[in-house]
């Protein structure tokens, strides 16, 4: 589905993408490119419904692969065509589509596209300058390349899980695939870097994108401590990741499960905090005089601060601390995302009408461009772009198109 509007030029207009990506990371690659103007078709099939299409809850409580409210935000922007890739005729149509694309995206395991007869060797014959992004868990080569993880456990291989948890305790799992949308956006960056190179040199390529390596960049600061000092530490809680300041944490406020985050990384902010608390005796202790002292006595510092914070409403306290120059903000729960004045002011979440007619709330442009405003399309409804792609783009006549549908090739 093209994002074309002459009054609102989007920078990737004219870029066409065949997105074989599934679940979450691959679709977010397509979404990112689509928000910025690319024409993106998710290639999927009713023969094997993408598991994310069946995530509850569903629109109006009615289950169905086009009604997953938990899926549409992450997929919005992708178009959809259906091809049953077990069938040779469908593979040929996929190749015909790729011949008219700039980019192919997939996030299966290594070799899966080759097994389908749609590997880079084949697709680069169909379209010599194709940019193909393959983003398996641990890359296309190496002894761990066939490792199996879930999205939420992939971070274990990057060292990231080992630093997540309460200080002194066991690692605590992150309860969803934190790296999936991260890799989806980074995958879009990878595609655009490669397309820039293609435009200058005429050369396409097969991007070897290891989700493990991309998310391991977040472990970089801790990695450097190991590289420099041979030191490797356990969970860091909410402490400063490189121990550059204290207090640094979240503290319970008045109310049910309400918290505030407070981060102090220099003397000016510390003095602001002390002033906001009305100069209590404990803050004058030598234990908290200099930044190094505050780090050394971080536990008692946090206890003192928590005792004071507990009486306040999180939002009122954040505003009060900000008046003193202290970096503080409410800790949101999911419901706050729709009511928080910052997200409301920025239009972070929007209500759209799905092609099937129901209304749903998804996120919109999560970066604000001064010129190019993404046109955010909900869905996609499975196969919504079949007519356009097979008949107009590939020029298939009505009779053959009907037969391909009857034969469950387009399915």
């Amino acid at each position, binding site marked *: 589905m093209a994002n074309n509007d002459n009054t609102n030029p989007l920078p990737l207009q004219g870029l066409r993408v065949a997105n074989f990506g599934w679940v979450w990371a691959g679709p977010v690659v397509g979404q990112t490119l689509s928000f910025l103007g690319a024409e993106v078709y998710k290639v999927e099939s009713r023969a094997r419904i993408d598991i994310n299409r069946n995530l509850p809850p569903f629109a109006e409580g009615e289950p169905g692969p086009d009604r997953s409210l938990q899926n549409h935000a992450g997929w919005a922007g992708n178009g959809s065509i259906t091809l049953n890739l077990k069938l040779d005729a469908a593979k040929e149509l996929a190749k015909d589509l790729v011949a008219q694309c700039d980019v192919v995206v997939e996030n299966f395991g290594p070799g899966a596209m080759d097994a389908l007869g749609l590997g880079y060797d084949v697709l680069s014959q169909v379209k010599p300058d194709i940019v193909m992004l393959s983003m398996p868990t641990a890359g296309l080569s*190496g002894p761990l390349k066939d490792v199996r993880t879930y999205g939420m456990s992939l971070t274990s291989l990057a060292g990231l899980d080992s630093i997540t948890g309460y200080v002194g305790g066991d690692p605590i799992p992150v309860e969803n695939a934190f790296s999936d949308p991260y890799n989806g956006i980074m995958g879009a960056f990878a595609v655009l870097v490669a397309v820039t*190179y293609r435009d200058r040199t005429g050369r396409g390529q097969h991007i070897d994108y290891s989700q493990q390596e991309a998310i391991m960049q977040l472990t970089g600061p801790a990695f450097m401590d190991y590289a420099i000092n041979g030191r490797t530490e356990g969970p860091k809680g909410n402490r400063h990741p490189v121990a550059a300041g204290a207090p640094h944490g979240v503290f319970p406020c008045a109310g049910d499960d309400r918290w505030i985050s407070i981060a102090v990384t220099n003397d000016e902010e510390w003095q602001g905090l002390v002033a906001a608390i009305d100069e209590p005796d404990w803050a004058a202790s030598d234990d908290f005089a200099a930044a190094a002292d505050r780090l050394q006595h971080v536990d008692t510092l946090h206890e003192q601060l928590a005792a004071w914070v507990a009486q306040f409403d999180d939002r009122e306290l954040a505003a009060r601390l900000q008046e003193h120059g202290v970096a503080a903000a409410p800790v*949101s729960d*999911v419901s706050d995302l729709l009511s928080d004045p910052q997200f409301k002011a920025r239009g972070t979440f929007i209500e759209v009408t799905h092609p099937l007619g129901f209304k749903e709330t998804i996120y919109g442009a999560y970066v604000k461009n001064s010129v190019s405003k993404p046109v955010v399309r909900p869905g996609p409804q499975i196969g919504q772009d079949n007519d356009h792609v097979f008949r107009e783009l590939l020029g298939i006549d009505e009779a053959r198109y009907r037969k391909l549908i009857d034969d469950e090739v387009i399915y």
Partner: protein
Amino acid sequence: MAERALEGLRVVELSQLVSGPYCGKLFADFGADVIKVEPPQTGDRARHWGPFPNDEPHPEKSGLFFFLNTNKRGVTLDIATDQGRETLLELLRDADLLIENNRAQTMRDWRLTYDDVSAYNPDLVMISITPFGQTGPYSDWNGYDLNAYHLSATGHRYCGRPGEAPLEHGAFSADFYGANAAAAWGMAALYGRGVVGGGQHLDVSCAEVIAAVFVGAQNIGGYAANNVFERRTGVGMPLGAPATILPCKDGHVWMLALEPGQWNGLAGVMGNPDWMQLEMFQDMFVRAQNADAMYPLIQQWTMEHTKADIMEWCQAAGCPSTAIYTVAEAAEQPHLRERGYIVDIEHPLLGKMRNIGAPFRLPACPGGPASPPPLLGQHNDEVYGGLLGKSDGEVAGLRAAGVI
């Protein structure tokens, strides 16, 4: 070395700490000429954040600064002075991209808003990355990664035990999410300047990016429709099991066996104990309801074995369990060594430094860190003299005035 993908692209980075510099690094990794502009004397604040060798602070020895600033050139400039501001505008005149992560009020004070800089170079793309964004009631707030991250509900929803503190991941998670989004959207804005008719300003809020694409993606539709929402449970997956982190003999493992084949694979690895045949453990949902009974039984077994053995045996049996690698173990993986992900870079003060490589591989035009981060003001002469064509006398004058 093969020609790199972003050769010919010039980036000016007016950024400190994590978000802006990581965004700049992504461009530098793939061959853009990134000129980092730092305040004279003190430099980027990251120079004063560790890790340092033996924990002794030194502005040229910060591991954080090293990681975030490879492949860049570095100059010093006092933007707050008229001469400094003029010099920055000269740099921007021929630049493609400006990356900044200063507070909005600071940019206004410096008279370096998008309106100001685009008047000098209408083709310039400008990226602003801040915790909360350029608009909205929090836009002038002070903030760091921790504040942005927790405003996004990521911790409240997904990380921590019920009733206890929501957790950051021990990293700069929101800063990295913001930097990543800035790079992708910035790259698109650069790519499409011909279509769009010039440059534009990209306003990135780290809190908004992670709130939208991670938490919002799989929560907001359901919450808006049904007015109910979930919170952290402290368990990997509360509705399916086993799916959580368990201790083992030498650390921890991510124990996952949800589908029947995975569960049967795990049973085989564990020697087919009788309890695994009980009715109460026959599918992932029932197992989750009986998790309090099941996890201790699995843990008895994991405590007898190492993470490496558990991962190897499970993976071979079709069960996707993995080792929780410590940072050291992650760094020492033969897999990453074989793929060339771990690289060595020579630094004038730190000697040979190990670093991690590019986030992805482009076989036709490889990227990744190759040269060390700049010493403070290292490239003043070649940038102000060579690039801007100032005479030796002019450069000396700026230096004497404390502008550089």
